[in-house]
C-alpha cells in the first residue's frame, strides 16, 4: 500500500527554484531514503509532505490526504523530526514528552520511549542543558510519541559522533520492526546503504534515480578494481591484454587492474600459471558512494550544459 505519494512536486522561493520536479512513492513498512547533496531540495520536499509548505505545483498525498487541507487526518498518524526544531528551553525532557503525548489520541508511553532512546537518565534535564546528541534523540522521541504509522526523519544523525550514529541506526531499525514506515532524509551514503530499502537520489531539485541501494550500485559500469603486490616482477602491459581487463597500471610496487566481473579469476589464474604470488591482494567493489557521485555529477553537468 502506498502511504506517501509525491508527483511532479515544484517549489520555488522567489526566483530560486528549490524543487523542480520530484516524484516518488513510499510504500507501507519500508524505509525510503531521500539522498542528495546540500541544497538539492530534500528538506523542502519533506516539508511539503509534512504540510509545512505550500507546493507551487504537483501533488502530495499522505494516506491519500492532502497534508495541508486535511491536516487533522495527516498529523495524527505522521510523526515528523525536523532539522533545527527545538523545544522550550526550560522544559524538562519528560515534561516535553508528556506534553506532546497529550496532543495525540493514542500516544506511546513517554517513559518507555525515554528508555528506548536512552534518555531515562536525562528525564529531568531541561532542554537547554542537553547535548546535541541528546536533543536529536529527544527530537526523534517527539516524532514517535503519537505512535505514527509514518515517520519523517530529516538529517537525524548529522552532528552525532560515530557511536551515537550507530546507536541511532539500531533505533531506526527497531522502530521499523514495529511496523512504522520511515521517510529518511540524509546525505550519508553509509546511512542510506545500511538502513534504506529504496532511495531516491535528488540533485538540483530533481530525482535522478530511484531504486534499492544495491541496484543503484549495480547500475554503475565501473567493475572491479584489484590491487596487489606481485612476488616477482610482472609486465603490466601483459596483464592489460588479458580478457575482460580494461587497464593495468603500476603504482610503485603495487599493480592496479581494472576490469569487468570475471577479472579477478582471470588474473589469479594467469598469475598462478606464471608462478607469481599476489601479496596484499584487495578487491574494491563500487559502493553507493560511487553510484551517488556518478549520478549527481552527471545531473549537474547536464543542468549546466
Amino acid at each position, binding site marked *: 500500500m502506498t502511504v506517501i505519494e509525491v508527483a511532479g512536486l515544484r517549489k520555488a522561493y522567489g526566483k530560486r527554484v528549490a524543487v523542480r520536479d520530484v516524484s516518488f512513492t513510499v510504500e507501507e513498512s519500508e524505509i525510503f531514503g531521500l539522498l542528495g547533496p546540500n541544497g538539492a531540495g530534500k528538506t523542502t520536499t519533506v516539508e511539503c509532505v509534512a*504540510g*509545512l509548505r505550500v507546493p507551487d505545483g504537483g501533488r502530495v498525498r499522505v494516506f491519500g490526504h492532502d497534508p495541508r487541507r486535511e491536516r487533522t487526518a495527516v*498529523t495524527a498518524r505522521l510523526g515528523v523530526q525536523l532539522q533545527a526544531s527545538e523545544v522550550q528551553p526550560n522544559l524538562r525532557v519528560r*515534561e516535553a514528552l508528556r*506534553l506532546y503525548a497529550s496532543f*495525540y489520541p493514542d500516544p506511546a508511553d513517554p517513559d518507555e520511549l525515554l528508555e528506548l532512546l536512552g534518555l531515562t537518565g536525562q528525564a529531568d534535564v531541561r532542554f537547554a542543558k542537553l547535548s546535541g546528541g541528546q536533543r536529536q534523540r529527544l527530537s526523534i522521541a517527539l516524532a514517535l510519541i503519537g505512535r505514527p504509522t509514518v515517520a519523517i526523519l530529516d538529517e537525524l544523525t548529522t552532528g552525532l559522533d560515530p557511536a551515537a550514529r550507530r546507536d541511532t541506526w539500531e533505533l531506526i531499525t527497531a522502530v521499523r520492526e514495529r511496523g512504522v514506515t520511515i521517510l529518511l532524509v540524509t546525505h550519508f551514503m553509509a546511512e542510506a546503504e545500511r538502513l534504506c530499502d529504496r532511495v531516491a537520489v535528488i540533485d538540483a531539485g530533481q530525482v535522478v534515480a530511484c531504486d534499492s541501494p544495491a541496484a543503484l550500485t549495480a547500475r554503475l559500469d565501473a567493475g572491479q578494481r584489484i590491487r596487489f603486490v606481485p612476488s616477482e616482477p610482472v609486465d603490466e602491459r601483459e596483464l592489460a591484454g588479458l580478457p575482460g581487463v580494461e587497464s593495468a597500471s603500476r603504482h610503485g610496487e603495487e599493480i592496479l587492474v581494472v576490469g569487468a566481473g570475471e577479472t579477478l579469476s582471470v588474473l589469479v589464474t594467469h598469475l598462478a600459471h606464471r608462478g607469481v604470488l599476489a601479496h596484499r591482494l584487495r578487491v574494491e567493489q563500487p559502493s553507493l558512494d560511487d553510484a551517488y557521485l556518478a549520478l549527481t555529477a552527471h545531473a549537474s553537468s547536464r543542468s549546466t550544459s
Partner: protein
Amino acid sequence: MTSSLVPSPGRHPFRELVRVEALLFGRSAAGVVWTALIPLAAVVVLGAVPATRHPSDSFDGRSPLETWLPVLMMYEFLMTAANLLPAVLAGYRERGILRRLSTTPVPPSRLLGAQALIYLALATALDATMLAIAVGCGVPLPGQFAGFVLTLALVAAAMLGIGLVLAALAPGEKAANALGLVVFFPLLFFAGMWIPRSRMPHVLRDISDVTPLGAGARAVQDCLDGRWPAAAALLVLAAYAVVCGVVAARRFRWQ
C-alpha cells in the same frame, strides 16, 4: 515539580499547553520579578509609608498611592501582553518550536492562545491583589467601578494587540525584547509614570490622550472621579486593539 505532571494522554491538549506554559513562566526569574515582585513591592511601599498614603497638594489632593495605583495596574498588562508575550512567541518561532507544533494535531495558534490566557490572567490577578492592598491602605474604590473594569479590559486588549504586532514584526527573541523596550518607556511615560497626567503640559497631555495608556489613564481618572469614562478615551483603546489585531493577523508567521 515533576510529581504534579500527571499525564493525561489524548485529552485536553489546550489545558496541558496552558499548564506547561504557566510552569515555564514560573521558571523564568526575570518575568516573575518584573511582573509580580516589583509592582507589588511598589504598592506595598507606597501603602506602608505614611507620607505617600495621605493626600498631597502636589497630586491634586490625592495620595501618591492613589495616583500611581492605576498606572501600576495598567503596567501589568503592558509588561505581560506587550513585553513578555512577544519575546516568548518570537523566541518560539526562532527556535522552531511553533514549526514543530505545526506537525502535530495541535496547531501552534493554541500555544499563542495559551500564552495570551496565562499573561492576561496573571495581570488580572496581580491587579486585583494590588487593588486589595491599596483599599486596605485606605484608597477608596473607584466611584465608577464598572467603567473602571471596562477600561482595564480595553487596556488589556490594546496591549495584547500591540504585543502580537511586535511578535509578528520581530524576527527573533532579541529583536522582540528590543522592540518591547522601545514601546515600554514611551507608553509608561504618557500614562503618567514619571509626570502625573495632571501635571503634564498641554501638548504632552494631548499626545498622551491618543496613546493607549494615556487614554487608559484618562478613562481611569474619570472612573476615580465617579464619572463614566470619556468615550474618546475608550475609542482610542478599542482602536489600538482592533487595528493591531488586524495587522498582527496579517503579518504573523508561524515559522
